[in-house]
């Protein structure tokens, strides 16, 4: 995952130092790699909860935002009923997980959209300006932050789930 992000930044540097179609191709590939770095982080997180989930690209945001949150909520409720955690802790954990899951889902949706444009819509060009570049008005800097954001929210989710004994 880190390697993909590194490849993304390398491709972005290449895009900034070349011109024309070659720069466009490097730029597109950088967006693609940035997306995959974020996607694989998410996939890794989801498979820790259920290795049988089919984490397809278009469905990954819904899976994390709906299915994972429901799973954590159910577990928190169960432990609350047993009296192992308090109602306040249950609420705190589930709302933290829901907020982090929603944030990941939103990053993934934007990243997926940009990746699809970079892969399937060559008519939409990469625009170079102010020593950086963007695709569909999403800058390279924004794309570079996708994986970091997913990783940060993933850390929040795993930390909360450790409190439930759900992950270790």
């Amino acid at each position: 995952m880190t390697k993909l992000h590194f490849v993304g930044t390398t491709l972005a540097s290449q895009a900034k130092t070349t011109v024309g179609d070659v720069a466009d191709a490097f730029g597109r590939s950088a967006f693609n790699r940035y997306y995959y770095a974020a996607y694989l982080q998410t996939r890794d997180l989801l498979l820790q909860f259920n290795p049988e989930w089919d984490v397809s690209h278009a469905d990954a945001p819904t899976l994390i935002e709906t299915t994972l949150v429901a799973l954590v909520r159910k577990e928190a409720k169960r432990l609350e009923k047993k009296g192992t955690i308090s109602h306040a802790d249950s609420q705190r954990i589930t709302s933290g997980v829901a907020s982090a899951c929603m944030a990941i889902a939103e990053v993934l949706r934007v990243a997926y959209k940009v990746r699809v444009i970079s892969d399937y819509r060559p008519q939409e060009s990469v625009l170079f300006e102010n020593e950086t570049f963007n695709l569909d008005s999403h800058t390279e800097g924004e794309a570079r932050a996708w994986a970091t954001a997913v990783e940060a929210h993933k850390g929040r989710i795993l930390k909360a789930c450790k409190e439930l004994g759900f992950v270790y």
Partner: protein
Amino acid sequence: MSISLESIKAFLHSRGVDYVDAVRVVNETNTVILDIPRSKIGATLTENETSKNQVARLSKGIADQFAVKVVVAYRTSGLLADVESGLRARLQIRFPDFSLVLVVSFQTSDRVDVWISVNDQVTIETAESIRNCVEDYLRDANFSNFEVEIVGPDRPKPPLMAILRALKVRAPVEIDALMEELHIHGFDCPDRRWLSARLDGARKRELVVRTPSGKYMLSTEGLSSVPVSRRRSSSDIERILALGKRKKW
């Protein structure tokens, strides 16, 4: 079957949807992508804003009608992106000696979550100053609904569920070995007495039993509290693996 962009646009028009900035049809993946500016998303439906529930309903409508997958990409407006850049710059100027990782997530046009990871040089007082600095900035930017979370590098103390899970994996176990097991999994117990007090609390709640030789294990009630699943990190699988590694029986 290929989907036509015009039919999706006609569908949006028939529903009176005016908050979608761009529609893209990707036949290769049978997906429709809707681009929606975040500034048009509010907590509830109003004259100028729609809600996430409305967007979810719209997505379902398109998915059902055209048998496609719908991906909604919320576009953070230049203004919100500027708010994030401004916050980043402010933290860099105010706290230049600390390496801070800032993640900002705008849930709606007026709701923002900020998550900051700090290194071990950040004291409790500095962390509080960072929090105040972020909160003042967000208030100045007219956000009334925000959450700021600061996460330090310290290993957390193990919560009860983590202690029960460690016990399930290693039982029957002495207190030192239990501390070691928790340490491996990213928790730090202040000392033996702290963990002993937690275990006593769990014993009173009949989740844990202590053998005459001073070893701890879970009661039936404790065992049923620890989550199990079919995933690779399931506590059942970890227990089996731990038994397999055991040198002395």
